[in-house]
């Protein structure tokens, strides 16, 4: 639990944030210049003019009225800035070791989680943007943080999937159990990763709550127009060499056929992405379709996103909702309503492996 009640004067406005954040992943969203990075820096202790209170799981990091102002080196808050902020004079390995105080176990585990082994001898100047972010994340983890602050610029850009930090973030969340504040522009990430979304506007909290509840907010729906992705974590079940596919199973038991996952073995965890607009909706069970996946779901809500309609679909077994984006005319002609059972058809090749 992170209790934040802070105020920080910025150039154009004051950042004022009052919020209680959970121990999972909190997405921080909002337009550029709304104070997202300043919030992270204030929590890390890098903004001396911050007033108010920050309490992290019972440890007071800041209590201006009581005169408590923990120095950044005593906060144990890991910070990964937009440009990763690696030390250019050190190799990737020495960067990861930097704050570990000789805890080789933690260094090794961080290197493993972020899959850095092939990069360890390299200097930051020779790494790609995504690789830098991974090294910086490992560097934070190795320093044994009580909270991770992650400012991710790549989610907003059209970068290759390999550059994305998302699958690693899932692993960190599952294996390291560190609460994360995560600045992102990706609505799909907010929907699937984040326990809640803190929406900032001009330094103030415009809204705070589960991403699904905030999707109709202009700031989120504008971001959503750029594309919404369903992000899934699954386990590899088997490979079908001749069929060119692999079979995976989601946490809720849904079995999916995806493109052949080379280099993964049965039992391995895998992260998948599927764009909301790549899912086809049918009002009856479908047969004779080339799409290898047909999933029965129930529509729990229908929203507008830009000019499109967004369906929230849940399986009877529960689990994360599937987001499906179709045209309003499709909604009208199929007569789709909330509560209705529908079938989602997805081609194997529409899934992308992260």
């Amino acid at each position, binding site marked *: 639990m992170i209790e934040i009640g802070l105020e920080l004067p910025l150039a154009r406005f004051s950042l004022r944030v009052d919020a209680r954040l959970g121990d999972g992943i909190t997405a921080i969203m909002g337009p550029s210049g709304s104070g997202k990075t300043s919030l992270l820096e204030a929590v890390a202790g890098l903004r001396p003019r911050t007033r108010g209170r920050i309490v992290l799981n019972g440890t007071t990091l800041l209590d201006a009225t009581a005169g408590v102002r923990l*120095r*950044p*080196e005593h906060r144990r808050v890991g*910070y990964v*800035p937009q440009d990763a*902020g690696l030390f*250019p004079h050190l190799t990737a390995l020495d960067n990861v070791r*930097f704050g570990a105080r000789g805890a080789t176990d933690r260094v090794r585990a961080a290197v493993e989680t972020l899959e850095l082994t092939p990069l360890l001898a390299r200097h930051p*100047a020779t790494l790609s943007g995504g690789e830098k972010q991974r090294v910086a994340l490992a560097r934070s983890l190795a*320093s044994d943080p009580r909270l991770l602050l992650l400012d991710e610029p790549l989610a907003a850009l059209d970068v290759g999937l390999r550059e994305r930090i998302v699958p690693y973030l899932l692993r960190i969340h599952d294996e390291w159990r560190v609460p994360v504040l995560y600045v992102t522009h990706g609505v799909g990430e907010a929907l699937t990763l984040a326990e809640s979304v803190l929406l900032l506007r001009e330094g103030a909290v415009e809204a705070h709550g589960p991403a699904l509840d905030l999707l109709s907010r202009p700031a989120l729906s504008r971001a959503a127009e750029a594309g919404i992705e369903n992000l899934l974590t699954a386990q590899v079940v088997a490979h079908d060499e001749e069929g060119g596919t692999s079979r995976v199973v989601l946490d809720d038991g849904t079995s999916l056929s995806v493109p052949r996952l080379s280099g993964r073995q049965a039992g391995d965890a895998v992260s998948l992405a599927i764009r909301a607009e790549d899912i086809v909706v049918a009002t009856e069970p479908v047969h004779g379709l080339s799409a290898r996946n047909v999933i029965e779901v129930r529509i729990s809500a229908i929203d507008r996103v830009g000019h499109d309609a967004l369906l929230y679909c849940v399986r009877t077994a529960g689990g994360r909702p599937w987001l499906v984006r179709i045209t309003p005319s499709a909604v009208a002609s199929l007569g789709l309503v909330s509560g209705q059972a529908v079938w989602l058809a997805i081609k194997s090749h529409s899934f992308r492996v992260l």
Partner: protein
Amino acid sequence: MLTGAELAVVGFTLRIAALGTALILVPGILVALALARYRGPGKSILETILALPLVLPPTAVGMVLLSLLARRGPVGRWLESAGIEIVFTWKAVLLATMVMAFPLLVRSARTGFEEVDPRLIGLARTLGCGPLAAFFRVTLPLAWRGVLAGTVLAFARALGEFGATIMIAGNIPGRTQTLALAIFQASQVGRDDRAQVLAGVTVLLAFVTLWTAELFTRRRARRTAT
């Protein structure tokens, strides 16, 4: 080739230059760091004052030092009561080289520190470094090029100091005579051959100093190739 007395002059000059550079290193780095980080009022005045010895005739700097250190001068009076003699001793030579070399060190080191992204220092702090540890693990390694260049320039300047030295230390063979002063004296008494030899030695020393620094910089640069 060099007489015993001349060798002693070379040794004296090298010792003074090395000691003077060593003594200004820490204060020079601190001042450079302060100037690089300080953003408040008076910054440009402070910088101008520090740069003055670079452009003033060294004899003028020597004159200022002399009036400060003279028996009736503000510092001299105090020194005399403490029983410390500076003017016309080797200490005056040392002082003159330190004062003249200091701005060169600060200037170059400051540029080095200004090139270090202050956010990296903040990040080092979040990773558990106190201010001092952050300085030695991040700031200094990233600014070392400027610091080294400043140190080398300061040493080379100290080797060749003439004007301020002659004002406050005189030109006393065996006591305060450095290479630059010895060249001057040899030429004054018509020993142009000795003056040429000593000038040659000076050129050689300066060349070796700068060249060593150059080689060192290159080797380090290759190791952290970008």
